[in-house]
């Protein structure tokens, strides 16, 4: 049944004709207890990560590590039903840092955070401070992950407290060097669990 108001079709064929916004919240995962990994798998638990949207955006809010000072917040992807999370990545990593005691400032390219055809988890943030009030936040865009033609680019930034403590921003970009559709994303700490935090997945609408 169509809903028509003043000769304007508002809803028809099971969908709204009226604009409901271009950015759709797909999934929120909030850790109720420490976890080794956080996964977003297309087709599972209401997650959509396919050609429904051309651009996907992950937002991280107050990610807190179980292990202090020596852990990095990272991500990887996989294809099909694979669970190896070892896609080939070439990436860049810029770090900006300023210690609370005004001791050091930094704007550098960091070879410790990039990859050259590597299959490791990609760093989003390095050496998280683990005090009870410390956390990191950030965002990650993945462009057209379901393409079977192009490599899959990503752009992201993580910001928050790293060890010292210091204000720290990581700006990363790169690509999964595969023409196979990505179907899943995994987030984890390089050491220890994710103690707490929320990750949201949004789809940026195609039409």
């Amino acid at each position, binding site marked *: 049944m169509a809903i028509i108001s003043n000769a304007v079709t508002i809803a028809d064929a099971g969908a709204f004709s009226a604009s409901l916004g271009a950015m759709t919240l797909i999934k929120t995962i909030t850790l109720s207890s420490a976890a080794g990994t956080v996964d977003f798998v297309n087709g599972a638990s209401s997650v959509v990560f396919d050609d429904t949207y051309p651009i996907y955006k992950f937002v991280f809010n107050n990610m807190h590590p179980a292990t202090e000072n020596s852990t990095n917040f990272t991500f990887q992807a996989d294809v099909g039903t694979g669970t190896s999370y070892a896609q080939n990545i070439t990436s860049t990593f810029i770090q900006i840092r300023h210690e609370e005691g005004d001791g050091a400032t930094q704007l550098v390219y960091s070879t410790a955070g990039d990859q050259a055809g590597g299959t490791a988890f990609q760093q989003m943030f390095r050496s998280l401070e683990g005090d009870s009030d410390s956390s990191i936040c950030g965002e990650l865009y993945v462009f057209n992950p379901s393409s079977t033609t192009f490599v899959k680019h990503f*752009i992201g930034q993580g910001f928050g407290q790293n060890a010292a403590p210091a204000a720290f921003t990581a700006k990363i970009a790169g690509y999964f060097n595969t023409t196979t559709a990505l179907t899943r994303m995994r987030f984890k700490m390089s050491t220890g669990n994710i103690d707490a935090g929320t990750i949201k997945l949004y789809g940026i609408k195609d*039409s």
Partner: protein
Amino acid sequence: MTVISNGTNLINNGTLDSGIPTGAMTLIKTLTASSSATLDFLNGTSNVVFDGTYKEYVFKFYNIHPATNGADFTFQADTGTNTNYNIAMTTTYIRAAHGEDDSGDSLTYDTGRDQAEGTGFLQVISGIGNDADGNGNGTLHIFSPSSSTFVKHFIIRSCTSYEDSIARDMFIAGYFNTTTALTRVRFKMSSGNIDSGIIKMYGIK
């Protein structure tokens, strides 16, 4: 017809009630390149809105694939009904790079790609490789393009597989040095056509 649920108006007089959340980001227009020399967004044409309706406009471009290997994806703007696309701009350009062979890791301010009151097309994505799987992606924000008081600022973040084997992360910003309202934006390659790719234009409420 009015749709009322539990005493609350949902739909009336052809529109959703103002109390119904419709999101703050509205898709205005999608353009898809197919061996295209230019892609234009003109206020008032083909359902494009680029005026005072929104304070911020966002262009998202993805899978931009050039016909010419190493071509730059570029943009310019114009005012009124002009089609010169040569508004003076002053800009900055920072980029990080890292090769698949682990060479060339760097963070650089690139004076070869910025402009100082230049009127040329500005590089948005530099040096996109045109291997079959090569492409460029990113986002352009333009703030208050219709202002008749202020210059028009923009911010760009983009990435590509530079010449097919180097990850590049680009941070670009600047301003159109005019107090005349911008009415149109053009995208094109520095050389050759845009072989394929999609540009989406959004308004931020």
